[in-house]
């Protein structure tokens, strides 16, 4: 009984602030949209889900409309690229950190977390200053006699911003799993004839896999639903799912469609995570 009592606050939090709103959203997604926003309570329809893939012609026949699907695809592509970039940058950083003497390591962990001390908005504005047409990077390019590049308000800017924002979420879990690796295993690999590359691919990376999986999920999932960065660096165009959903609740006044989009996203994320975890499911030695 006591144990149930201790669980109550957590159950309350999850129930009241997560399950209840989710249920409400699910309910709303099957309602008819109100003319001035909101919904018409009591009139049920699957229109919101139909709208995701089709549009209605004048004679009410359904036509395939891939606009929204494309935004989803773009979001997925950007999230994949961001995760990959974060992995490519984050893994060497984490490896470097794990190989430093202990006191120095703690300093490096501290440094990795320093960006969190600044508000996400401020950090994104900083990127605007760097990337805009007459920003620092273009000034530098022109100073070198090169053509300025158009970077701000492109998917490139979103990718850079997202990679920057979520990099610590990649570095820290990978570092945590690299730090636990017994360096004698690496020596053993060398001793048995593995050069540096193969010691990395056959011993270090497989042993760091739990951290790599955790880091990738921690970057990929929030990237999919990212809102602030695409809004600021993408120029407010509906380039990613987050902005699309926000739009439906805001300017478009289509709450049921916004809710439906959120649920489609949720479903896809869950599916992707299950496939990913299934692919890298734990090997037997970790079960003991």
């Amino acid at each position, binding site marked *: 009984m006591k144990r149930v009592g201790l669980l109550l606050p957590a159950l309350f939090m999850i129930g009241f602030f997560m399950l209840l709103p989710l249920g409400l959203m699910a309910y709303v997604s099957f309602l008819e949209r109100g003319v001035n926003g909101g919904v018409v309570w009591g009139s049920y329809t699957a229109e919101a889900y139909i709208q995701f893939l089709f549009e209605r012609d004048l004679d009410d026949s359904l036509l395939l409309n891939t606009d929204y699907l494309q935004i989803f695809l773009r979001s997925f592509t950007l999230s994949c690229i961001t995760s990959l970039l974060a992995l490519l940058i984050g893994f060497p950083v984490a490896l470097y950190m794990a190989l430093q003497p202990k006191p120095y390591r703690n300093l490096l962990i501290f440094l990795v977390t320093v960006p969190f001390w600044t508000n996400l908005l401020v950090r994104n504005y900083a990127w605007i200053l760097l990337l805009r047409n007459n920003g620092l990077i273009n000034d530098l390019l022109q100073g070198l006699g090169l053509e300025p590049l158009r970077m701000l308000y492109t998917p490139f800017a979103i990718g850079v911003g997202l990679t920057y924002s979520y990099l610590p979420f990649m570095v820290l879990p990978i570092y945590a799993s690299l730090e636990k690796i017994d360096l*004698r295993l690496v*020596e*053993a690999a*060398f*001793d048995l*004839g593995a050069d540096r590359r193969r010691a990395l691919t056959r011993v270090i990376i497989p042993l760091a896999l739990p951290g790599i999986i955790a880091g990738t999920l921690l970057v990929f999932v929030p990237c999919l639903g990212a809102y602030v960065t695409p809004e600021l660096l993408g120029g407010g165009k509906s380039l990613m799912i987050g902005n699309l959903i926000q739009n439906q609740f805001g300017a478009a006044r289509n709450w049921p469609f916004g809710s439906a989009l959120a649920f489609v996203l949720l479903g896809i994320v869950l599916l992707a995570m299950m496939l990913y975890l299934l692919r890298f499911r734990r090997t037997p*030695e970790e079960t003991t």
Partner: protein
Amino acid sequence: MAESAAIELRGLSKRFGHAQEQVTALDNVSLIIRENEFFTLLGPSGCGKTTLLRLLAGFEQPSSGELLLEGTSLAGLPPYRRPVNTVFQSYALFPHMSVADNIGFGLEMQGREQAERAQRVQEMLALVKLHGLENRYPAQLSGGQQQRVALARALANQPKVLLLDEPLSALDLKLRKEMQIELKRLQLETGITFVFVTHDQEEALTMSDRIAVMQHGQILQIGSPKTIYEQPSRRFVADFIGESNFLEAEYIAANDGWAHFRLPGGVELSALEDPLQGYRNGQKVTLVIRPERASLCDAGSGQLQGVVENVIYLGTDTVVYLRLDGADTLFQLRSQNQYGAATALGVGDHVTLNIAPEAVRVLTD
């Protein structure tokens, strides 16, 4: 010389750290390890034996000196290019690989075919008596089994030299004894040169063809287990390997192949004269007498006398501690309990010791 050198060290030194805080782990060590030899580096922790092994494996680079394998210098060769394999103290088995993949790892790195690897893995499993465990993971094995996998993995590459870094220290006593015999068998069967590092003198005596006793980064003595035990060249060696009684004495004279020494109390002891050692008159020496080489005798026929201070019964043996007359040192005497004679002694008994000249080893350091 019939046997050729597998490994030769020439003035090898290794220093760690910088400037003031520099520590010398190996100090100008020269050494030849013969082919097909079971060679042991024996010494207390911090004596440089593990550093020497790591230099051989290539994990460390020497500060100065040369390291040759079958006559070719190993300078600058990374560990993965050396035909040398290591059995690590902690085994260092790859936790994410099965036993078969662990054993086959070295062959895979050499680019051998899958079929050849599988066959070799089976041979190795047979060699270390681990049939049927190829699909297990290291975490599913006992310490002794992990030890055997580590051996099989290091031997699978057919190295010219196998380096063993205190591989038995994590095993319990019974298993350790078993593995000592097993290691010796493996060495004879494979014909590979073994370089074994240990701080356990008994382990060293049991398995080795030759032992190098190390202290403070230097080799004090190299020899067969018998030589090391019976003719220690230094006080440290005599003290580190087995038990010893040390008696300070001074040289008096030599005649008919005997050298005579006088203890502070005036008692005289004789030793076999060592033609290589020329003693000066009155030279201070240390006489080393192994506890089992001294014996009790009737009053009047022995040289040393003392009072029993302690009697310790050890099952096979009894150890008696004596306070020698005229000396402040305790003398240890060990006798087999074959006839039960020594156990009859009681604390406070006056006894006489007989010490044969053959039992006395003279040290000048």
